[in-house]
């Protein structure tokens, strides 16, 4: 399966103030009082969808459209069975859970709305993405701590590699609400948004005539950050042109030391730019990395992008994950 080339063919974001994925590479924090991205959603049925679902729907639709997988009506341009869905979120549905338990304490079960039942299950975001676009392939939700976004991208690759699906919509999302703030009292900033990408086999992209933006390289989830990075760098030794770092990168060794020889370019701390994004981070990193490879990388360079999430060995997380993105080969 390491022989199968899996490429990125579409990107999407739903972050207040962020115009396009390329802005993840800029130094400017999204500022002013920009429009809420979920205002882009129209139609019925929004009332009972939670914030995470709505953010994911905006980013997901953008990525699917960019990859040419849905038409103007939102319906897939390929068989729905061939498209999988993978979502990463840690806090996606805690608002529904907390509001409901408070309602029961106050008004008994009679005070609750049965329409909220699906959102008590943590897969509700992936469920609505599939329903909205008719994605009938394997459908996964990863709630795996701070590495979750990178883990989700790798599971999407495995679903393609195993032949279960030909392409996958991956979305990382975290909402900002009182329940999330309650669970992370030490944080003073909170991310509210989603990032999405479409992954498919290089063969599928070629058959559809879609230009790959980047290719997935090796992935590892290990107990220590240094081991996760060393593991992927061993398998992909090309120079790292961009390193997207974990939340709380303070305890992590400098890239020069942990990345081995070769020039190291920019270091991006997306948590610093947008607030700690937990389960969304890995997907945001891959969107930023793809945008860099597809546009901002120096001409003629063969540099790769390293993304790492979770710090493992510093004691803040149970593990660290690392993933490399490489330039897309021209077909």
């Amino acid at each position, binding site marked *: 399966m390491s022989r199968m080339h899996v490429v990125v063919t579409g990107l999407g974001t739903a972050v207040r103030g962020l115009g396009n994925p390329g802005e993840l590479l800029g130094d400017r924090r999204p500022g002013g009082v920009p429009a809420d991205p979920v205002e882009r959603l129209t139609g019925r049925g929004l009332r009972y969808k939670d914030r995470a679902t709505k953010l994911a729907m905006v980013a997901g639709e953008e990525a699917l459209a960019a990859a040419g997988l849905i038409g103007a009506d939102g319906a897939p341009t390929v068989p729905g069975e061939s498209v999988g869905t993978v979502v990463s979120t840690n806090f996606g549905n805690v608002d529904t859970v907390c509001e409901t338990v408070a309602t029961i304490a106050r008004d008994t079960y009679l005070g609750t709305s049965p329409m909220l039942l699906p959102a008590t299950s943590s897969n509700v975001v992936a469920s609505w993405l599939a329903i909205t676009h008719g994605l*009938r392939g394997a459908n996964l939700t990863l709630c795996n701590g701070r590495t979750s976004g990178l883990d989700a991208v790798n599971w999407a690759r495995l679903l393609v590699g195993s032949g279960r699906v030909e392409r996958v919509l991956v979305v990382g999302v975290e909402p900002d609400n009182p329940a999330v703030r309650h669970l*992370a009292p030490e944080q003073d900033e909170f991310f509210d948004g989603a990032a999405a990408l479409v992954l498919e086999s290089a063969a599928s992209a070629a058959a559809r005539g879609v230009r790959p933006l980047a290719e997935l390289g090796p992935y590892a989830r290990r107990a220590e950050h240094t081991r996760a990075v060393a593991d992927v760098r061993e398998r992909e030794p090309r120079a790292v042109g961009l390193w997207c770092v974990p939340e709380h990168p303070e305890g992590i060794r400098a890239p020069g030391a942990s990345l081995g020889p070769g020039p190291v370019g920019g270091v991006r701390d997306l948590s610093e730019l947008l607030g700690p994004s937990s389960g969304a981070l890995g997907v945001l990193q891959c969107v930023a990395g793809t945008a860099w490879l597809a546009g901002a990388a120096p001409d003629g360079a063969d540099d790769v992008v390293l993304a790492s999430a979770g710090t493992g060995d510093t004691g803040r997380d*149970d593990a660290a994950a690392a993933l490399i993105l490489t330039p897309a080969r021209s077909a």
Partner: protein
Amino acid sequence: MSWIVTGSGAVASIGSDTDEIYESLVAGRSGLAGLRGYDRGKFRAQVAYEIDDRPAPGVDEPLRATRWLERAVEAAAREAGLGDDLSSVPVLVGTTLRELRSVELSWRDGTPVEVADLHFGTMLRRRFGAADTHTVANACSASLYALALATDLLDLGQADTVVVAGVDTISESTYGLLDRCYPEAPDRVRPFDRARRGMLQGEGAVAVVLRREADGPGPGATVQARVRGVAVNCDAYHPSAPEAKNIAAAVREAHRRAGVGSADIDLVMLHGTGTPLNDEAESAALGSVFAGVEPSPYMTAIKSMTGHTAGASGLHSLVAAVDVMRRGSVPPIVGLDDPVESVAGFRMVRGQAVRPEEELRIAQIDSFGFGGLNAVAIVERYAGDETAGGDGAAAVREEGR
């Protein structure tokens, strides 16, 4: 490719290990009891299938799911000869509700809860040194979905051994919302009975150790069963209601992956939640898949005794199927007194356990969840005289087609 189960462990309301659970199932012993950890005055429904381990009646505590998961994984790893060191073994945990009950206690009562304990990797790292761990929140088909992912990891050469687990506790938000949804409060889980009133939740955890059959069980372990294939898909239809057509597609794909036909299935572990929507969708799907198969496979539904153990339920059914095939008795669907019309052609096990004279060799395990998530596994009895990876295994496999 086929895979072997080399260790298993489970806890539920009806038993604290796989033996106790099997014995309870065969005896028709249910875990149903009055609500133990909630204020009963807040609900119309008054019963559930809880594990009785709270510090005092009416007093709840966080991290119970994590505790059960630890026990199930520990038992499975020991049986598989892995001991307590899972530092080089991926662990995939399927769950509907993660530690959201702990979040409820934190939000409502101020009980301290660490964010890191919301996913199970934190405990798995501390207890077993495991780092390649994945909490898959795939609703009530989560543990069989995780089993499918594990077979893929082994197929693709990404691992030699994988621990697959499932775990769920009851959250008050789901219990209350289910109570709100049903016209009458369910008195118990009665799959496929005309008097069914809906689903009641159960608690528990379960784990199995999976390897490629060609590699054998490894040192200190024996083969408990052979996994022939696992299919997964998504209805993309409704956030909570199932779709019969897509369930049938998942069953057919599982048969195709396993290289079996409908007539080869000896036993079906039904998803069987006792909700009219699910029961009807499942019986319609199985009616089409098993049309013309006479007599039908034996069919049973263990949720009638364990309650709906949600993300753990698929793997609970799988471990039960393995024990049924090894030990010979098929547990009854407790409370199935007056079956609905749609199961009239099926050999539903009722009243008490049956002990078929013929060997039960191939089982189908159904598991469906919110979001239209369907997972179906085909598992084969592993005869004691077979040698994993040897000619015997191949011969049995050929004969099974």
